[in-house]
């Protein structure tokens, strides 16, 4: 990347949807004319295996970047994180992080997740969802805005560096040999990958409760040296099965290509934290039951026995103490005054 330029990466939609291709192409055409932008195009981010040139290219980007994909920003960001492409999550007005829909009721501070492992490089990654808007102009304007923000961030970093500049003598040491960046041609970048299917953990929400590890019987999950949950064997995952995501109590497990938004990494906002889930009343099955059914289908397909709800189903809400509690009473009162 040349100095002072912002890397913009367009991750193409899988398949050949002409409307999606048109948006990608129009955006690419206008970005090529844009000063201060280094543009690259890669296939669908989710499908890139570890050896794909597109992924190696992403890994080689040292600075700030904007990633435009047909994915929820939360899914794209944590997908990159899992691939070791890390930074601070950039915020974009195109999709505010948390919706303030109840101004009179500020959401309580959620117990934070365990966060990403290891050191986070001092750079920002903005993920934009190409499904948000049909026209390319709004993305172009947002990228310009990000370009200005990135320039400010860069200046701040340089100033900080200046301030903490080590004595000159140290810089006289041998310069560390930097590995030359491999050649990335548009052809190798765009080599079509095959479709993949695996969960992505949002570590800003994950509390390391291990319910996914207990639930999945296909060996997808494991723990690292620090006993933190991770998706150990992505390719052991069963195509189309999002069951572990339903079991996760924190909505921290994302299947970026799943059809329902909650599982595909839609902004979590207040959902689940503050709102009543009426799914059961409106005819939905208990998510645990759905998850067990989905898992059984895959077990049987593998020639194994279905286990139903017998294995790895968290026992929430059972033998919960029903003692008299003040807050509980007031909550029940609050419910009565909900105007229902």
């Amino acid at each position, binding site marked *: 990347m040349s100095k002072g330029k912002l890397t913009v990466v367009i991750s193409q939609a899988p398949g050949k949807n002409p409307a999606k291709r048109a948006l990608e192409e129009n955006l690419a055409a206008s970005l090529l004319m844009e000063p201060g932008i280094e543009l690259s195009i890669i296939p669908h981010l989710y499908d890139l295996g570890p050896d794909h040139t597109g992924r190696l290219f992403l890994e080689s980007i040292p600075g700030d970047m904007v990633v435009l994909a047909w994915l929820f920003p939360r899914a794209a960001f944590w997908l990159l994180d899992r691939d070791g492409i890390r930074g601070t999550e950039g915020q974009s007005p195109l999709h505010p992080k948390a919706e303030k829909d109840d101004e009179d009721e500020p959401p309580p501070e959620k117990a934070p997740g365990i966060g990403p492992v290891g050191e986070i490089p001092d750079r920002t990654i903005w993920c934009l969802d190409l499904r948000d808007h049909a026209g390319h102009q709004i993305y172009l304007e947002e990228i310009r805005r990000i370009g200005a923000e990135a320039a400010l961030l860069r200046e701040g970093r340089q100033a900080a560096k200046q301030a903490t500049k080590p004595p000159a003598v140290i810089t006289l040491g041998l310069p560390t040999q930097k590995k030359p960046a491999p050649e990335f041609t548009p052809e190798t970048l765009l080599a079509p990958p095959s479709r993949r299917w695996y969960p992505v953990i949002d570590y800003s929400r994950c509390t390391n409760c291990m319910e996914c590890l207990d639930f999945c019987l296909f060996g997808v999950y494991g723990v690292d040296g620090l006993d933190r949950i991770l998706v150990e064997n992505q390719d052991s995952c069963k195509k189309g099965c999002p069951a572990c995501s339903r079991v996760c109590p924190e909505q921290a497990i994302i299947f970026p290509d799943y059809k329902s*938004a909650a599982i595909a990494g839609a902004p979590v906002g207040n959902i689940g934290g*503050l*709102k*009543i889930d*009426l799914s059961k*009343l409106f005819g939905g099955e208990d998510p645990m039951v759905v998850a067990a059914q989905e898992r059984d289908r895959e077990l049987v397909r593998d020639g194994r026995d279905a286990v139903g709800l017998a294995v790895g189903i968290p026992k929430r809400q059972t033998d919960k103490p029903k003692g008299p509690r003040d807050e509980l009473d007031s909550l*029940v009162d609050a*419910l009565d005054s909900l105007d229902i």
Partner: protein
Amino acid sequence: MQEDLWFTMGKIPARLPAGILYAKNHMWARPETGLNGNGLFRHGFTHYAILLMKDVYFLEWNISEGDPVSQSQEIGHIETSKAESGLYCPAAGTLVRFNAALLNDPSAINTDGYGAGWLFDLDAPETGYMNAEQYLKFLSDNWEKTQAMLKGKMNQIEDDES
């Protein structure tokens, strides 16, 4: 014109127009006439459902018009000021069309739930839907359980917060 029925939820009455049908998942169904389809029903949320949900913020469908659907299949999602829920198909058939006007602005669900706030048209040969009296009885019979469930959910929310 038959008179509307009312179900009292705590202090608030929910209006149940006579002459239309009701599904157990708290959707109403009105046979669509003049469209040749014998089993074509327009569906929407009952007043009861709307009173539980309050203001609708966001409505989303995850299937397409013309798709075949099975009973209880998850077909969408709704978020309101007080609740969120998956949306499930009340009968098997073909989802003919969605109310496109709601996708830009779902507020008609709250302002005119039995009219402009309709959700979708479903071609369903067999429905097992209830009439207003049966739905009223269904609501009364289940009210205690529903309250317990809602309070249970409230407890859970409280636990999440603490």
